[in-house]
């Protein structure tokens, strides 16, 4: 559980700040696409669902691979410092809207 949450926070921030997503959703067409579609015909694409899927997949794999005895040794502080770091990264990245 703890490993999942820690990796999810890190993986989500890495995916969204790198701008990479395995797929995009095009609300005007109401369809997902793994290839970028032209704005003029497809409208704006949404990467959010792809970032979520990416973070969930990475977190699930790591949570399954890491043995229970290792996971239990993770300090309690890491479970809340990881999301705090992710929130700080989001705040820094989104400052562009307020300048």
């Amino acid at each position, binding site marked *: 559980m703890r490993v999942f949450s820690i990796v999810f*926070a890190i993986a989500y921030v890495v995916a969204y700040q790198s701008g990479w997503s395995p797929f995009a959703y095009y*609300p005007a067409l109401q369809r997902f696409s793994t290839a970028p579609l032209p704005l003029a015909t497809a409208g704006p694409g*949404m990467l*959010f669902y792809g970032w979520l899927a990416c*973070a969930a997949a990475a977190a699930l794999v790591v949570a399954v691979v890491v043995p229970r005895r290792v996971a239990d040794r993770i300090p309690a*502080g890491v479970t809340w410092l990881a999301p705090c770091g992710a929130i700080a990264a989001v705040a820094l990245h989104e400052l562009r809207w307020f300048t």
Partner: protein
Amino acid sequence: MMITVLLILHGLVAVALLGAVTHQALSVAGAPKARTSFVGKLRGVSAPAYVDAIVALFALSFVMGAFLYPAYRLDVRPLLEDMRWKVPTGIFEIKEHLAAIGLGLLPAYRSAWRAADASPAWARARRALTWILAFIVWWGFLTGHILNNLKGLL
């Protein structure tokens, strides 16, 4: 029509979530207070009793928001961009990312509250995770209201 109904339901679930997480966050904020005053009663709740409700309400609210998001992207955000309203666009971008981080946080949050470990480190972790969730919920709630009101003006 469906979007309006879903938006209202999303708002109602968010109100319940806001109340639950605020009660829990205040209850772990400091030493217990006598339940004689309004603040004492507000804080004097059994924090562990709220955990499953908060997890379920957050997940439900997130799913509803994920269904509403395409309508925002098509109908609201282009208007904000046309008006060059960067700040509302920015606070919604932050809401989107905070909601995702909050969703990923739920397993650790539930695990921390279910852990039998009574050490100060885990007590601190429970308090911190609760306050992070409370911050995310309050940001999402206020942003949703601001954006909904702005759309009404446009």
